[in-house]
């Protein structure tokens, strides 16, 4: 089982709102089939907010980083850049993919994208993730940096 499937289990808060199938994910490459969740719908009731793609691509790209780790370690998003070509419609099927391109000095570099059923690009993203953060449940949450 790929780490993103374990991370995104029924226990994860996000799974209440988004059902995703990560079949085909291997090592530093993650795939997801999901639908644009109604919980993210805009006031028009037709489209979902761009925040949906931002949230899910961050998750999918983080999963690609988890897939290359030799041991379980916390990771944290350091930077994320996303271009939104089109907001998905509510309930629209989406194919997502992400690839960890490399790790240099504890920073993982990742790309990701969302496509429609017709293979139209919906959103593209690139991001950096810190591997092995200091975040623990007993840290000083005010001043401590996870970077």
């Amino acid at each position, binding site marked *: 089982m790929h780490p993103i499937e374990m991370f995104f289990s029924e226990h994860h808060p996000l799974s209440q709102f988004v059902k995703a199938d990560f079949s085909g994910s291997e090592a530093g490459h993650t795939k997801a089939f999901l639908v644009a969740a109604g919980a993210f719908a805009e006031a028009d009731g037709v489209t979902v907010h761009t925040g949906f793609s*931002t949230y*899910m691509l961050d998750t999918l790209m983080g999963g690609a980083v988890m897939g290359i780790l030799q041991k379980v370690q916390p990771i944290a998003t350091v930077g994320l850049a996303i271009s939104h070509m089109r907001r998905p419609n509510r309930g629209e099927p989406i194919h997502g993919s992400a690839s960890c391109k490399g790790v240099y000095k504890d920073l993982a570099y990742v790309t990701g994208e969302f496509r429609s059923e017709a293979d139209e690009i919906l959103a593209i993203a690139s991001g950096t993730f810190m591997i092995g953060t200091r975040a623990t449940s007993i840290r000083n949450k005010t001043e401590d940096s996870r970077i």
Partner: protein
Amino acid sequence: MSPDPASEFSPFEEWLSVEKTLDPYVFQLSFEEHHLGNPVIRSIHGGVVGALIEYVAKAGLNFRLQQMDRQADVDLTSTSLEYLRVTKDAPVYAKCEIIRVARRIGFVDVWCWQDSEELMVTRGVCTLRISDH
């Protein structure tokens, strides 16, 4: 989850649990359990804060356009986010600054904090398309 048809908020606003403040360019996200990224360390998912930044950029630019008497639709086209500090399971505040409103594009900076505005947790630079009616 079914949206409440009587609600003044969109399903996304309810999920994000975001509200206006007295300052039209400042918004508050009330922490909800479903905002957690890692339930063990109880930090807010980076994607949730990213979604908040995109929401605030759009809402802030819409407000500015109203002030300018421009009837227009606004669509977010790109966002660049920097995660500066770890978040905790507490409210997040987000403030935006409209950098420039051009004919077809708007540029908005957004920054988020929890304990104090001087201790930013995340900042974002957003570009939005403006389509006049």
